[in-house]
């Protein structure tokens, strides 16, 4: 029972973590809360669904296709909606982000209708495995495996590659990064591409997990993932991973012990409690005032 719930929680939490990473990376670089990020996740789920049901691609190819599509979408959104406001107040950019978010969910409702769609059952024929007395679905293992792989790949990019180092430099000090010859606009585009690709993968996985894809799925998932990013310490990549997993596990256990009607409130309750004790989040850095 415990093991089973733990696996349920980790699977759900992995998807929160995938989405949370996009919030935290974008915030780390341009201190913008990309309100449209949840809708990128939603679009990712739809694109994956279309590729599976219309083009009959297998789930992995569909996920890759959806990631590529959302990468471009993320870059375009930044270019159209945020870049022109880079030097304006933060509030303007935030309002623009909310606008993009509303636009995308309305567009999805017009195109796909208001009813939730499901993945065809042959998209990923999940089997149940019995480990001890726990029933674990291969779908959960897929979700955990794919998420872990993507997060490892992200960690490699950020720590070891030239563009990843440029991302870290830019998020520490935008102007000084430019003085190094780093094209910060390119780095920002790249950050949106990475974050959006992860959200798209999350969208496909969540669509499979709940067998439901709908125009408004980005709202709650986006809010919870944002809570996960803040819980972990916004701007911190390991923080977003940890925050996502914690919230997923807490939600599943909360439901298991009988608080199912508070399912969506659990994440925010934890967030508030942690922020009371640690205002910078679990792995967030103290914000040093410049002297």
């Amino acid at each position, binding site marked *: 029972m415990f093991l089973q719930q733990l696996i349920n929680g980790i699977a759900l939490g992995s998807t929160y973590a995938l989405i949370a990473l996009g919030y935290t990376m974008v915030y780390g670089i341009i201190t913008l809360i990309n309100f449209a990020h949840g809708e990128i996740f939603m679009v990712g789920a739809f694109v994956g669904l279309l590729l599976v049901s219309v083009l009959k691609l297998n789930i992995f190819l569909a996920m890759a296709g959806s990631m590529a599509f959302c990468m471009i979408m993320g870059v375009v959104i930044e270019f159209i909606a945020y870049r022109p406001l880079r030097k304006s107040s933060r509030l303007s950019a935030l309002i623009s982000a909310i606008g993009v978010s509303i636009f995308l969910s309305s567009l999805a409702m017009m195109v796909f209708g208001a009813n939730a769609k499901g993945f065809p059952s042959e998209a990923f024929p999940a089997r149940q495995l019995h480990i001890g007395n726990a029933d674990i679905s291969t779908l959960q293992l897929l979700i955990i495996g794919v998420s872990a792989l993507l997060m490892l790949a992200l960690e490699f990019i950020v720590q070891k590659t*030239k563009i990843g*180092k*440029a991302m*870290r*430099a830019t998020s*520490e*000090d935008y*102007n*000084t*990064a*430019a*003085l*190094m*010859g*780093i*094209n*910060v606009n390119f780095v920002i585009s790249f950050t949106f591409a990475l974050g959006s690709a992860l959200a798209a993968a999350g969208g496909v996985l969540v669509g499979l997990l709940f067998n439901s894809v709908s125009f408004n799925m980005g709202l709650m998932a986006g809010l919870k993932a944002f809570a996960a990013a803040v819980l972990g310490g916004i701007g911190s990549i390991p923080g977003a991973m940890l925050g996502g997993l914690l919230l997923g596990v807490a939600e599943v256990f909360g439901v298991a012990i009988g608080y199912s009607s508070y399912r969506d409130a659990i994440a925010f309750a934890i967030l508030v409690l942690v922020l009371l004790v640690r205002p910078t989040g679990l792995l967030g850095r103290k914000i040093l005032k410049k002297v």
Partner: protein
Amino acid sequence: MLTVDNLSVYYGAIRALHQVSCRVDQGEIVALIGANGAGKTTILTTISGIVSSSTGSIAFEGEDITRMPAHQIVTKGISQVPEGRRVFARMSVQENLEMGGFILSNKQEIKQGIERAFTLFPRLAERRKQAARTLSGGEQQMLAMGRALMSNPRLLLLDEPSMGLAPMLVEKIFEIIVEINKTGTTIMLVEQNASMALSIAHRAYVLETGEVVLSGSASDLASNPEVRKAYLGE
């Protein structure tokens, strides 16, 4: 080599520079001195393309770079050690140097650049894996200088390299600046420590509230009574 012509810069409604003209010739060390808020840093950040000017022009080796984006200016051969060093605190010494060599595409060249920085500043070599925030102020200054040299600049802009350093270390840093200049790098040096700056510079400009009020050879300025009174503490 560098020609700044009639440059005016505003931060919103605040005028930071008013019709500043100055030049730096190949091989020189040129000092910019002036009180707090005179606009020294603004000149350097405008040359580097971080701040944009409202009027005036900047030309480097005959090419107009006034509106060029900052990252492209580096590829033209201008590099800067910014005020307050601004090392990437959470990145290691080695990674900071790698960032300095961002425009280099050849791995071998990056490696050689890092070795050169370690020869110039042996204390950095012992700390190559350490996060830059754990370095002392003097070591951070060395790192910022080593980082700026990674791109093999022909013109190096230095903003207050002596800030907050003990006198011994200031002397050492200035020796290294002279050494860097002797190996063929032209230098534009902003300093509050006017006596040190004038002692190594060939020429200098004196800036007051955003305007150039005096210029000339460093030795002439060092013996100018007004300069001695205002900036050399006499």
